[in-house]
Each structure stands twice: as structure tokens, then as C-alpha cells.
């Protein structure tokens, strides 16, 4: 017992031993770098409100770096602002701005090198080349930050949250705008992207490659140059996200390229040129999504196989679906199509006539895009109607056998 008490006392004395260093004009430490020099692992550094131009600040100890009333750390367009090279670092409550610009080393507002358990929370990053850059790190949390940049050309600006070759990251509740890609994932596994808002970025709201076993949930991707791209990945979960207002010739709400074994559910695709564009993807389950007011609700290329598209609402899209070939290896079932004109005699909410969602005109436009000019002309309506009754040009097995009569409540 005595030994136990003693050990508890000994242990707690270690915790108490961690000291707090205050930085500001009225304190002993005027500069963050000096305090960092004197700090040891476990110390807390509190930075008072002020304007700090200290070049590149390297954090190589496990410290809590806390800003009081948002002190400003400025990189003067010459330095990377904060560099983290230690585990268990927390950075909280700063305004971090004007990092340098360099194509070779990709400097960032905050850059984490080979570290674990780093938390970056409640900071405002403004006009940096990269906002937060995480490389070869594990178990890091990026939470509630506001990352913005002035719109320039794609070459002049980096990504908002850039993650490379990492594992078990949590990107939560950030607000990202005006960067090249809002969130960039490459070789990042077992991570979650949750409750972020990524809008007005030059290229993608979320750019996602070779990142297996990740989830992104309840994010909003809006007004991005080319929407969201998810590529070369397996086992991704995409739920409850909103993809909105991504307009342009090669712009998609969600671009899926070579994705397999993934789950896409309860997302909302609103007002995009194409809601989802799927290419070379296998074994996806796409269910309970809303496709509304898109040019194309879903463009599913003939290179896709064994995908299940079930229980989605297709409402007010110019074209609900389109494809580029006659081979159909995907299954459509129990979706609601607002263009469906069948009937339901036994009132079980399932239409008695199978529905061909692929209109002749969408096939014509796929083959000859300028044909969009005669959209909604009487001749097109006429052709579409006759094709619906006797399919000749559209693949006959592109069919929803159980179209729903009413939209699914989601």
C-alpha cells in the first residue's frame, strides 16, 4: 500500500512538473522560439495576443502551444510558419498567415513531418501556400480550423489540408475555401473526414487517391472548380455529404474512378453538371442518395461492373442517367424516378411496368454533344416516347424492374 501511494505521488509529481511558459510583451519570453528552446516535453506554452514574425518555428518537443485571443504568426511570404517534428504536439488558437511559396518543398502554414498524435485545433490559416500539410504521420487530428486563401491560379496555390502517406487521421469540422484542393488525401488509410465545409476551391473540394479504408461523412462540397474526385481506392465510405453547384464541362459532383468495394449512401447531389460520374468501378453500393436538379444525375460508364444502385431519388435532372456503351453490368433497383410514367395497380408503391431510365436523347447527346441544341424540341419528345415503348438504340437491360411510385423520404 505504501509503495502504491508513493508511486502515485511520484507519478503525479511528474505531471505537476510540466510547467507553463507565457509569451508576450509583458512576460519574460517575448518570442515563441526562445520559449520553445527552454521547454521540455509536456510543457504548455501560452502565447498572448500579438503579432509574431519569427520566421520558421520548429516544434521538436511534445508541447501544448496555445494562443490566447488569436495571436498572429506571420511567415512574411519567406518561411514555412510552423513545422512540427515531434509527437504529442497540440497547436490551438492561432492565426497563421503568409507562408512562403516554393514548388519543391511545398511549405505550409502548419506542416507535420513524421509525427504521431498531433492535434491542430481552432486555428485560422490565411493566405498560405499549403494550409495544413501532414506527411508520414499517424493519429493526427485537424479540427475546427478555418483555412482560406486568396484565389490565384492553380500553380500558385497549394491545398487546404494536404495529407500524404499517413494513417488514422481525423479531419473534422474545418472550413476550407479558396485553395487548389480543399482536402487532399494520397496514400492515407483508416482516416475520417467529418463535418467539413469545402467550398470555392480552384480544383477539387476533396481530392482522394490511393487512400483505402477511409470514410467521409456529413461534409459539404460546394462551388468547387471540378467538384470532388475519388480515385484508385477501395473500401471508402461516403455518407451524408452534400455536393452542390459544381458547374462546368469537366466538373462533377462526385467523380469516381477505379473505386471498388465502397459504400455511397444518403448523400445529396444538387445542381451539378453531373451528379456522379463513375468510371472503371466495381462492387459499389449506391443507395438512398438524392439526385436533384443536375444536368446528368449519374453518368455510369460501360467500364463499371457489379454496382448496385438502389433506393435513390432522381428528381428534376435533365438526364437521370447516361452511359457510353451498350454493355450494362450494373443493377438498378427500387429507385424513384420522377420521369416514370407507369402505374401501380396493387398500391404497393412499386410501379408495375419496369422503367428504362436511359432516354434515347441522352444516348444521342453522349455520341454527339452538340445535339444538346435540340433539347426539349418536339421531335426529341417524339423520339424519346417511341424509344420508351420499343427500345432499339438504348440497351434493353438498362432497366429498373421495381421503380418506386413515390420518392423515398430521406
Amino acid at each position, binding site marked *: 500500500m505504501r509503495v502504491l501511494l508513493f508511486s502515485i505521488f511520484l507519478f503525479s509529481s511528474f505531471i505537476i512538473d510540466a510547467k507553463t511558459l507565457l509569451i508576450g510583451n509583458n512576460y519574460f519570453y517575448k518570442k515563441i522560439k526562445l520559449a520553445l528552446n527552454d521547454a521540455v516535453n509536456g510543457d504548455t506554452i501560452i502565447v498572448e495576443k500579438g503579432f509574431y514574425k519569427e520566421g520558421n518555428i520548429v516544434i521538436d518537443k511534445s508541447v501544448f502551444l496555445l494562443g490566447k485571443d488569436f495571436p498572429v504568426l506571420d511567415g512574411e511570404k519567406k518561411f514555412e510558419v510552423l513545422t512540427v517534428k515531434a509527437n504529442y504536439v497540440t497547436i490551438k488558437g492561432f492565426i497563421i498567415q503568409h507562408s512562403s511559396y516554393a514548388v519543391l518543398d511545398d511549405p505550409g502554414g502548419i506542416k507535420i513531418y513524421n509525427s504521431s498524435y498531433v492535434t491542430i485545433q481552432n486555428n485560422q490559416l490565411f493566405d498560405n501556400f499549403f494550409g495544413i500539410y501532414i506527411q508520414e504521420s499517424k493519429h493526427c487530428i485537424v479540427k475546427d480550423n478555418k483555412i482560406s486563401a486568396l484565389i490565384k491560379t492553380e500553380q500558385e496555390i497549394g491545398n487546404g489540408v494536404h495529407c500524404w502517406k499517413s494513417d488514422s487521421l481525423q479531419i473534422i469540422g474545418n472550413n476550407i475555401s479558396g485553395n487548389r484542393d480543399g482536402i487532399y488525401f494520397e496514400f492515407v488509410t483508416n482516416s475520417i473526414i467529418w463535418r467539413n465545409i469545402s467550398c470555392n476551391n480552384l480544383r477539387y473540394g476533396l481530392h482522394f487517391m490511393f487512400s483505402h479504408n477511409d470514410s467521409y461523412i456529413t461534409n459539404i462540397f460546394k462551388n468547387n472548380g471540378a467538384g470532388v474526385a475519388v480515385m484508385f481506392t477501395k473500401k471508402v465510405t461516403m455518407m451524408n455529404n452534400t455536393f452542390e453547384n459544381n*458547374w*462546368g*464541362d469537366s*466538373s462533377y459532383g462526385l467523380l469516381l474512378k477505379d473505386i471498388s468495394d465502397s459504400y455511397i449512401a444518403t448523400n445529396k447531389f444538387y*445542381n*451539378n*453538371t453531373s451528379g456522379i460520374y463513375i468510371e472503371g468501378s466495381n462492387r459499389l453500393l449506391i443507395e438512398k442518395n438524392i439526385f436533384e*436538379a*443536375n*444536368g*446528368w444525375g449519374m453518368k455510369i460508364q460501360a467500364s463499371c461492373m457489379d454496382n448496385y444502385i438502389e433506393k435513390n431519388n432522381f428528381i*428534376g435532372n*435533365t*438526364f437521370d442517367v447516361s452511359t457510353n456503351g451498350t454493355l450494362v453490368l450494373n443493377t438498378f433497383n427500387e429507385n424513384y424516378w420522377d420521369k416514370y410514367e407507369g402505374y401501380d395497380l396493387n398500391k404497393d408503391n412499386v410501379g408495375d411496368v419496369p422503367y428504362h431510365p436511359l432516354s434515347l436523347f441522352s444516348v*444521342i447527346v453522349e*455520341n*454527339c*454533344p*452538340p*445535339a*444538346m*441544341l*435540340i*433539347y*426539349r*424540341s*418536339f*421531335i*426529341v*419528345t417524339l423520339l424519346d416516347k417511341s424509344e420508351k415503348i420499343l427500345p432499339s438504340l438504348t440497351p434493353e437491360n438498362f432497366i429498373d424492374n421495381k421503380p418506386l411510385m413515390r420518392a423515398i423520404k430521406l
Partner: protein
Amino acid sequence: MNRIIKFIILDILKNKIVLAYTILLAAFSWSAFSLEDGSTKGVLTILNIILLIVPLVSILFATIYIYNSSEFIELLLSQPIHRNKIWLSLFIGLSISLLSAFLIAAGIPLILFAESLVGFMMIVVGCLISTVFIAIAFLSSILSRDKAKGIGISILLWLYFALLFDGLVLFLLFQFSDYPIEKMMVGITASSPIDLARILILLHLNVSAMMGYSGAIFKDFFGSNLGLFIAFMLLICWILFPFLLSLKIFNKKDL
């Protein structure tokens, strides 16, 4: 001239067909908006009416009316009135009655239910289309003294603009799909008033679908203020050209 116009309008009112047209059009438009759940579908129904029914009624009614008032025209010609005035007041009288029918029947629901910009656009375009087809009716009815032939020409012209033209465009698109024909297509659509009207409205409706490459070229042209101005001018040309031609023939014609 005002008295002639007044007389023509009263005459058209007396014959009740325009009244029936107003009621039918109103029934269509109101039910389009009240039956469909979203206003977009209602707008699309009215778009179809503007592109099909309005031209058909305008051209047929105007042609038949001109043929039927040949005796009235002859009577007027015996008076000391300039021929220009007679023909013009006939045109204005017909236009006013058919336009007010359209405005009352389709205009009010459009203002009430549709988005303001789209609704306004559709009203303006609908009025222009009505007038274009009245002008075409004047031309086809002056071309031949034979009533059956004149009405036949009118029906054929309507068929051509409403149906055949788009078929031809589709055919051309497929024949020349290997070439960059988008810009040429802008010119070709200008040669049909119905296509001009359709594209003007579509650019305000289905923006997302028109964002493809060819759509972008169209949007660049018709979406800009200059393009919008040119498109409206073209529609006005479609009124002026047939009417002035018919006026020229009327002035010289031995009736």
C-alpha cells in the same frame, strides 16, 4: 387607322374563337402549375405550349381571318385610305387580340408561379413568337388568292418550323459530327424562330445541362447581353421581314 384597328378587334371579339383560345390556354397553364409538384415542370409544359400551340393558333387563325376579311379589305380600299394603313391596322388588330389572349391566359400564371426571370423571359418570347407567326400568316395568305392553298402553306410552314426543322438539325449534327460545327449551329438555329425561342428559354431553365462544351458556346453567345440582344433582334426580324414582304406584295397586288 385607330378606328380600323378598333373595328378589327371588336370583330375578332365577336367571333369568340379568340375568347375560347384564351380560356383553353388559361386552363392549360393553370393546371400545368397546380397539378405538377414543382414549378419547373409547369414551366416546361408552358414552354411546350409556346413552342407548339401558340404558333399553330396564331398562324391558322390569322390566315383564315385575312381570307375571311377580303371583302372588308376591298370595301376599305374603295375609301380614300392608304393601302399601307389598311394592311398595317389589320396586322396590329390581329396581334393585339392574340397577344392579349396569350398575356391573360399564360402570362398571369407565369408571373404568379414561375421564377421571375424565367417567367418574364417566357412572356416576352411567347409574345414575340405569336407575332412572328401572325406575320408569317400575312405572307402566306397574300401569296395565293386560293384560300385552301393559303391555309395549306400556313400549315406546312408551321410543320416545318415546329417539327421538321429540328429533325433537319439533328440530321446535320450527325452527318457533320466529326467537324467543329458548334459555331455554325448558332447561325443555323437563327433560321428558325421556334428554335431561337426555345434556346433563349432553355438557357434560363436547364443551365446545368447546357454547361457542356457546345452548351458553353451557346451560353457564351446567347447568355451574354449582346447575344440576348441579337437573339431578340433576330426574332423581331422574323416579324418584320415576312410582314414587310407581304406589305410590298399587298401594295402592288391587283385585288
